[in-house]
């Protein structure tokens, strides 16, 4: 895959030609293809879906539902019915927690998460555990900073009702063994929810090959607009979900006193949906399909490994996570320089990296630090940009410590 060629698809890199954008785990840039799809929608197809008989609205409804089918096929869902549109990963996980587990988790039950969860896949379960008298258990990391499967097989038991883990840590960048965790969960009669926020942009996902029960991901982290996300759930689970919101769009019939709701997924999507977001997500997915997810994964892994190797040999730099890199996410610290100061310094060199706890405070503390720097690379980043970061880190050491 040729990053330089790919960069040309992204208008923002023309606008900010000197910028090194290394904060892709926060949000990704949008290719012209996606921007055009949204603009095309507003220029030619801006009609509401699922309500009107006139041809225009019918066409938009068809585009909208075709997008749902394409998104289903992107993760190989059994049916488009299993795709519910949400506002993003956080929204999806909250919908699942409040709509399903709030009523299915009983006192004494256990919910298992990993220590490396983003707050989005931690706080909803903390809340349910607290409200329902259940226990929240944590799968630790092993010495290589990968999820400890041995520990997981001890922790997941017949008491476990749900295993909720991220497929890719947004701090350490490792891919979790979702296959094995799915088998473990199912052996004990538990469900498994996968936070796909960082996986959907980088890895091929097949929810039938690895038969997870729930998947949540965000459009904006995979080149689609903000405000659109996906909640994938197995049909029987979605059918047993409480309806989160009532109102227009989700009903079969309404009398003055009662209403009959539509089938899934519509009854879980009250109100006019984010049509632009769905169209944009569909476009992002066809863009990714064109590149092929296996190539996307290879490219991110290659860049992640290169940056890791470069940083790892620098004096006074600690890089976190496994030595064998699988994604474009690399977190690190420079001795005696607080990540906040480092990020400000790098900002002055036009390099955008994230500093902080990355919404994963328990993990950050586990690493024994208050904060880290994170460079998260995506398909349009280059080896030259990695080299430039390394040079700037050397300059930075001089600036703050007076030494290299």
């Amino acid at each position, binding site marked *: 895959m040729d990053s330089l060629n790919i960069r040309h698809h992204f208008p923002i890199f023309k606008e900010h030609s000197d910028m090194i954008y290394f904060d892709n785990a926060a949000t990704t840039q949008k290719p012209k293809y996606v921007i055009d799809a949204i603009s095309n929608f507003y220029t030619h197809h801006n009609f509401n879906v699922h309500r009107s008989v006139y041809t225009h609205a019918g066409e938009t409804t068809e585009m909208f539902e075709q997008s749902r089918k394409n998104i289903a096929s992107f993760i190989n869902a059994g049916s488009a019915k299993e795709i519910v549109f949400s506002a993003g990963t956080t929204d999806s996980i909250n919908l699942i927690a409040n709509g399903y587990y709030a009523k299915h988790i009983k006192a004494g039950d256990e919910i298992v998460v990993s220590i490396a969860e983003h707050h989005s896949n931690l706080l909803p379960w903390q809340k349910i555990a607290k409200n329902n008298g259940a226990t929240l258990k944590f799968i630790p990391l092993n010495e290589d900073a990968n999820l400890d499967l041995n520990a997981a097989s001890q922790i997941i038991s017949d008491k476990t009702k749900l295993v909720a883990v991220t497929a890719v840590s947004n701090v350490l960048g490792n891919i979790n063994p979702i296959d094995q965790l799915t088998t473990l969960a199912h052996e004990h009669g538990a469900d498994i929810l996968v936070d796909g926020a960082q996986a959907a942009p980088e890895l091929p996902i097949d929810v039938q090959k690895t038969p997870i029960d729930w998947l949540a991901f965000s459009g904006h982290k995979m080149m689609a607009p903000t405000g659109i996300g996906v909640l994938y759930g197995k049909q029987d689970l979605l059918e047993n979900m409480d309806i989160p919101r009532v109102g227009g769009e989700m009903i079969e019939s309404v009398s003055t006193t009662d209403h009959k709701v539509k089938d899934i997924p519509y009854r879980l999507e009250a109100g006019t949906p984010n049509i632009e977001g769905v169209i944009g997500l569909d476009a992002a997915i066809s863009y990714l399909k064109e590149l092929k997810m296996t190539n996307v994964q290879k490219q991110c892994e290659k860049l992640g490994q290169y940056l890791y190797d470069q940083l790892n040999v620098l004096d006074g730099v600690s890089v976190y996570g496994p030595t064998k890199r699988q994604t474009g996410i690399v977190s690190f610290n420079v001795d005696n320089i607080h990540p*906040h100061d480092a990020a400000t310094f790098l900002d002055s060199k036009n390099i955008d990296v994230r500093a902080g*706890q990355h919404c994963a405070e328990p993990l950050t503390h586990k690493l024994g630090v208050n904060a880290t720097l994170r460079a998260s690379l995506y398909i349009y980043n280059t080896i030259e940009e990695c080299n430039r970061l390394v040079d700037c880190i050397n300059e930075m050491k001089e600036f703050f410590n007076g030494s290299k």
Partner: protein
Amino acid sequence: MDLSNIYQRIIMQKASECPNNNQFDSDVHLTNPTCGDNISMAADEKNPNIENLQVSCDGCIICKGATQMMLEAIQDKSADQINELVLNMSKMMTHEHYNEELLGDLVAFKSVVHLPIRIKCAMLPFKAIYQLINGDDINR
């Protein structure tokens, strides 16, 4: 962006002198949730005597520099005078008119205004001392 305006020598120097030995029970503990800066303060008697003030700060240069320089600025000041100092610091950070003379060396933080996300770092010790003295948050 001119880094040397933000990381002025005095700030870098004072940051290196900032106490960080969290060995006491704190009366006030504040953190910056996005970056992990944190500060603890304790005093035997709160208002107006803060002579036995204990402070520990772990964070970035801006936060540590601000902590140390604040500690130096509040020496021999009454609670009212400290509140006045906090208010003026806060005004400087929000582009309002402030008393430069009263802030003294703390004016070194003026450039932080251009880095909105770092304002919280500079203000953390001032928020903490305000809470310690007044028992509640500065309402601005």
